């Protein structure tokens, strides 16, 4: 199973997020993204509205970004599973979660993301395939890629 972890860090060094997503092996047609059975959502809210949010709220931004990535930039939908949403965010940072979703979609589809910008946030991506150990097969895509956009 292809799995991608996307981390965004704001230049203020306070706000950050990390999400992990996987492609489902037998994707049902036109299915909303689903949560892994052991999904983790640990987001520290940095303002009153963000403090009131739960996993339903945070994953909504991720879902928006996944849709833009798969359906608009790539052109074909893929069924996806969330494993992790962590971070420290303000409510207005939902857009950064959306960016993480779009980056994850591009990475899972092995598409170039160099044109996709995240103003004010640096991006780190790591990926793994459960069928082969990334450390053993020497796949350069399995190494950690870091890029500030």
């Amino acid at each position, binding site marked *: 199973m292809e799995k991608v972890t996307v981390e965004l860090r704001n230049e203020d060094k306070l706000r950050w997020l990390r999400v992990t997503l996987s492609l489902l092996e037998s994707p049902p047609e036109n299915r909303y993204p689903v949560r892994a059975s052991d999904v983790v959502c640990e987001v520290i809210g940095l303002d009153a509205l963000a403090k009131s949010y739960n996993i339903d709220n945070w*994953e*909504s931004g991720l879902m928006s970004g996944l*849709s833009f990535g798969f359906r608009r930039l790539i052109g074909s939908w893929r069924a996806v599973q969330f494993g992790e949403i962590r971070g420290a965010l303000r409510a207005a940072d939902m857009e950064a979660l959306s960016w993480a979703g779009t980056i994850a979609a591009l990475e899972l589809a092995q598409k170039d993301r160099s044109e996709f910008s995240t103003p004010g946030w640096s991006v780190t991506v790591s990926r793994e395939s459960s069928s082969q150990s990334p450390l053993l097969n020497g796949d350069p895509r399995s190494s950690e890629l870091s890029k500030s956009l």
Partner: protein
Amino acid sequence: MTEKLPTRPPLDAFPYQRHANSRPFATDMGPGVYIYVQDENGIVHVLAETEGHLHPKVLGGGTPAAAAGGMKLEAGGVIVELDNYSGTFQFGPEILPQVREALERQGGKVAPAAERPFDH
């Protein structure tokens, strides 16, 4: 339409301003890919999908919606794809008939096989 439709609030409750390019659906819109949000009065508002996470900005202000999703429009107001996918609102496919009806009321033509339901 006098009766208000049932609505649900956005999961992103931040009070964004309404996007400057958001407008009620009309047949003079150019071909392209759009997102839509239906308000409580049944009006379908649309916005070109030029970036992600636009649904909360179609109506703005944390306004609840009666339906939301995406569409692909061809010339002359012909909708060739219509879906219910929205991370912000997450309606099921049951909203598609009311959206089809509203789009036709606003002058659009929805192709017979346009509907693409997303399920949870």
